[in-house]
């Protein structure tokens, strides 16, 4: 089967500190994958490599058979953990920006979602609440008809009621047959939507399994997570 993501023997160090140590996995199109692990385990570094933000690694990384670069960035919709929109931008500016650069960006859908989220097209990012900013960043990502969505902690600063809504939104709006890679700590909120789970510990990929395999022993993904990462609690 043609793989959307291929990672082979990926290594990345920051000075003497090894952050990723021989990580290998593949991901087929049409899956929702959970990328799990405690803080500092290498999740964000792996995501930065997949999105082409970090290049000085060893090993092979391919998305749709291409190394991360201009092409892969055109098919990957990435939601970083950080607030990356400049203060002066308004939703109208951000939508214009995304529709200029991403051919797969659905401008009409974005405009409709701005009003659905109760955002003001002319309100500057710097005057928005944290929640409003997160809504704007999320809608910019899910209004792309991308082949791969990479969401780094999309539920991080959100209250439990909003988490369910965000997950529904992601499920409803990601493009058909696309792959969604979600990095999160909040496993209980998300595990129901995962098809597969990758667990990283100290730079090594220690679990790469379909959720049904994990649940065979009557355990939840969170139970497995707690077992695997008991040292980190």
């Amino acid at each position: 089967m043609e793989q959307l993501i291929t990672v082979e023997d990926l290594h990345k160090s920051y000075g003497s500190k090894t952050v990723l140590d021989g990580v290998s996995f593949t991901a087929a199109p049409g899956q929702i994958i959970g990328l799990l692990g405690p803080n500092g385990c290498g999740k964000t570094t792996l995501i930065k490599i997949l999105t082409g933000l970090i290049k000085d690694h060893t090993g092979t990384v391919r998305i749709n058979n291409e190394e991360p670069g201009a092409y892969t960035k055109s098919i990957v919709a990435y939601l970083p953990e950080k607030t990356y929109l400049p203060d002066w931008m308004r939703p109208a500016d951000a939508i214009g920006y995304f529709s200029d650069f991403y051919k797969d960006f659905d401008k009409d859908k974005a405009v409709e979602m701005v009003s659905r989220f109760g955002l003001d097209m002319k309100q500057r990012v710097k005057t928005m609440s944290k929640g409003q900013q997160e809504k704007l960043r999320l809608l910019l990502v899910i209004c792309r008809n991308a082949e791969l969505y990479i969401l780094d902690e999309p539920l991080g600063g959100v209250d439990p009621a909003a988490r369910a809504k965000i997950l529904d939104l992601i499920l409803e709006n990601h493009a058909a047959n696309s792959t969604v890679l979600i990095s999160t700590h909040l496993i209980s909120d998300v595990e129901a939507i995962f098809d597969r789970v990758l667990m990283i510990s100290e730079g090594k990929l220690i679990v790469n399994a379909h959720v049904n395999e994990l649940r065979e022993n009557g355990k939840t993904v969170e139970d497995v997570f707690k077992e695997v990462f008991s040292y980190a609690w």
Partner: protein
Amino acid sequence: MLGKLLKHEFRQSARSVSLIYACAAAVIAFIFVGMLTKITWIGVVGSIVLYITALVGVMMTLVSVIKNFYDTLYSNQGYLSFTLPVNCASLLGSKVIAAIVWVILSFVLAAVCFLVIAMNAKAVAEGSMAGIWDIIELTGLKEMLPSGATLVKLGILFAVSVLLLVFTFVGFVFFAVTMANTRVLQKHPKLFGFLIFFFTYGVTNAVGTKLTYSVPLSLEITTEDVKLAFVAMDQSSGMLSYGLAGVLFMALVAVGLLLLTGWIMEHKVNIK
């Protein structure tokens, strides 16, 4: 994609410098009111304010070019810039073009401001200005002024020199900011940015100055003509000589540094 990058680049950078242009326009209007109404103090105060505006405009533009480069690439906004479906050469190219345009516009603004100040001075002290022209004619200085064709050539030479100077400055600054945001140096990006800029610019400038005087490649400027001469600047027999090797060397180094900057952006930069 370069066109779209430029569009958004100008849009973003215009925000930080537009105020100074609005300010200059207001002061110029103020001076013209003074000239029309012949109220001397308006012209005098306006000229002082315009002089300050011109200097501040150039300084603000230089600062905002550097700040904009850092903010859009190496602060959180880097997550947006570096995940655009464009290569780093286009990304850098758009920033270099926008920076050069803004800096040159700030020079143009300063020139316009000084022209208005001169016009105002002429209006205020018309008699004295005519006297100065009489002195030039009487002392024979008029004969030493360059011809019209020479002035045009000098104008072109000046414009090209300014363009190269700005390009060189931008190349050195962007290289320094980018180097300071590699993993090894990014704990103190401002400190290392300054150190790298002053070191690379200082060393290159010293070598460039040496080459300017010693390499036999210069422009000889006389009242009749401006021509290329294969003599070293200090051995030139012309009325005025302008060594080219240093300027060309600086510009070539800037090209090299920009190519290196593109490579670092592509392979070594780490967004915090």
